[in-house]
């Protein structure tokens, strides 16, 4: 009993509860006779959609700017890059390659400005990020109305103003990565291409955190006073961390969009940052500590809950969307729990 208790504590109580919940959902789904192959394929697909956003939390947390609720800014930069690729009529791998390449400088510019801001508000980064993100979403709402895009697939056909709310990637680069190198294991679709890309991205971020700069960033995040005493430019490290996080967010939305099949504009990016934040927290990260394993495990667990809860709940309670309610309670509950854990010592 003591040993079991210790094991659970090592694993993390909140992570343990969420893991049990995810397994329970899977068991119930199986007992209900749901098509498990489809469910697992869905989980893998959604994992691919969200993994980049979760990964974006790594540089922000280790550089000490905490959970990046302002990933919204990166998302907006990425959407803009993506729309430009569509406007130029680019399709296939060229199209998405161009979009990704363009998202990087956009992300760097936005991330740099955002990093400067975060350096001015040390200690309140998360709440600042949230509201700056919200404000940016609405600025861009006006932007989507007035930017001079001309592609008829993107603007409202007759009488409308500005860009459409959802812009289909059909005919451009719909599922170009999530449909690449797919293979089946016992009926479950494994997205080989996506997994390879995510693995590569994780590996690069991992290498970065082990590099000289990554270690300096870690020092700046973990103990800024000590770090500046040994000659690390803390503010610079924080800006670099923010830029990396923003760029990952910008790339993330393009990868998300190709899997989803649409770019979503206007208010859609509003609360997108909540998904990766909740995911990495579920995976075992805190506001100050994160590993790649937290990112991967957390995203899998979180997406498992979201994917499986909906069909399971719809059989338990036919009307009303219990699955969505579960998602809201779990993700916000875990964020509150993490805030309480982090704030307790101050």
């Amino acid at each position, binding site marked *: 009993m003591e040993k079991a208790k210790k094991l659970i504590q090592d694993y993390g109580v909140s992570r343990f509860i969420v893991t049990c919940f995810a397994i329970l959902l899977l068991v119930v789904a199986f007992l209900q006779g749901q098509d498990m192959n489809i469910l697992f394929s869905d989980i893998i697909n959604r994992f691919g959609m969200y993994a980049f956003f979760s990964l974006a939390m790594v540089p922000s947390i280790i550089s000490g700017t905490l959970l990046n609720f302002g990933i919204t800014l990166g998302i907006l930069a990425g959407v803009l890059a993506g729309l430009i690729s569509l406007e130029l009529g680019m399709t296939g791998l060229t199209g998405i390659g161009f979009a990704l390449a363009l998202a990087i400088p956009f992300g760097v510019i936005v991330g740099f400005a955002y990093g400067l801001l975060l350096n001015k508000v040390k*200690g309140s980064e998360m709440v600042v990020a*949230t509201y700056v993100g919200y404000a940016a979403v609405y600025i861009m709402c006006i932007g989507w109305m007035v930017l001079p895009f001309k592609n008829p697939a993107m603007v409202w056909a007759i009488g409308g103003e500005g860009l459409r709310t959802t812009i289909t990637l059909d005919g451009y680069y719909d599922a170009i990565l999530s449909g690449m190198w797919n293979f089946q294991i016992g009926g479950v679709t494994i997205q080989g291409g996506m997994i390879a890309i995510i693995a590569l991205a994780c590996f690069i971020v991992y290498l970065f955190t082990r590099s000289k700069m990554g270690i300096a960033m870690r020092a700046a995040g973990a103990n800024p006073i000590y770090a500046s005493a040994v000659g690390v430019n803390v503010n610079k490290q924080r800006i670099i961390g923010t830029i990396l996080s923003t760029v990952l967010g910008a790339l993330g939305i393009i990868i998300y969009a190709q899997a989803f099949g649409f770019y979503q504009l206007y208010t859609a990016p509003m609360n997108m940052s909540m998904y990766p934040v909740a995911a990495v927290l579920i995976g075992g990260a805190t506001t100050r500590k994160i590993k790649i394993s937290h990112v991967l495990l957390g995203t899998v667990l979180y997406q498992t809950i979201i994917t499986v809860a909906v069909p399971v709940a719809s059989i338990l309670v036919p009307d009303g969307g*219990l699955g969505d309610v579960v998602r809201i309670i779990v993700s916000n509950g875990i964020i509150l729990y993490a805030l309480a854990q982090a704030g307790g010592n101050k």
Partner: protein
Amino acid sequence: MFKNKKFNIKEFLSENAVPVVFLTLSIIFVYYSGTQPAIIMNDVVARFARNAFFVLSLLFPVLAGMGLNFGIVVGAMAAQIGIYTALALELSGLPAVLLATVVCIPFALLFGFLSGWLNNKTKGQEMLTSMFVGYFAHGVYMLLFLFIIGGIIPINVYELVLPSGVGARSSLDLTQIKGALDSIVKVDLFTFVFILAALSAVITVANTIKNKKLDVTKTVLTVALVVVGVAGNTLPALSMFKRVVKVPVVTYALIGILCAFISMFFKTKLGQDMRAVGMNMEIAEVSGINVNKTRITANMISVVLSAFGQIMFLQNLGTLSTYTAHQNVGMFAGAALLIGGASVTKATVPQALLGTFLFHLLFNVSPLAGQNIFGSALIGEYFRVFIVYGVIALAIVLHAAKKASGKK
């Protein structure tokens, strides 16, 4: 003398930059909206009445050092539980509103206690916490209204539940309680100004007797109100205002009572403790104040007041969007308070009132102004929401920057 006066104007402008900017913006928008000012005024009078409680309720957490309490949405949820109960008991009119008020109080106290407790666990991040408290509570609220109502608690009123019998309908008609407070007494704008003038005169006389010295500002105010009242009743240019603008007296009286209560409250021991905690928690703790308890109390008062606010809001509106009516309450109230010139740590009753007025004036005219300036009402709507988030973001950035530079 002249130089001195000029200096004062500059100081006035820099101290009140935010309201001045928004007043200017509002005037421009009113002009471009192309709507009759009297019609705008009538709408703003109604909006002010239904939102003032929310904004005033934020004063407590702000002064207790917890920043803008976006978690007042839980108060709105408590109010909706109260209203739903009144509907389920098939009450109408004032009794329904009174029952809803009684029912919502224990819920509001409980929610306020829980969110206050969580705020104490996350000192320094209260605004973020309170925001997520709102999101989390929204999930629990949905669980209650979608599954427990009708599913576990039987509801016998057909109009209140979905056809399947489980879950509340997403839009409820509140015709039976619409105007329960507002319609008790309604007067035109200038009669209301006379009422205010009479009140102001009484206060002036009382102050003059108490201090044995003429209260000059209050006397000027009284005279000004009388002049406005007379002008409104005689000048043909203002006759439109007299005809169109109707003021719900009881609602405004309640707002007045709350304002008086707040001013008095912060003179009591508890109110002073709250301010002390807001200024510096460590010093407050050392001087024997129970910091955590004081903060929880501030939070509970705020949530209860916002619950009252939501009841006033709904009786004015006449419909209840069961699953969304509470969502933006905290955000809008926070933005209104800031537009009135408050900061995240300092706020006064006049700022709350001015902010409510300016915010809702801007909210009313933005779509039409957007239509006429940019050729798109939607741009105006996006712009006004941007104002909400922008002003909150700016206030938080300024506050956080000050806090961060103070630490060095």
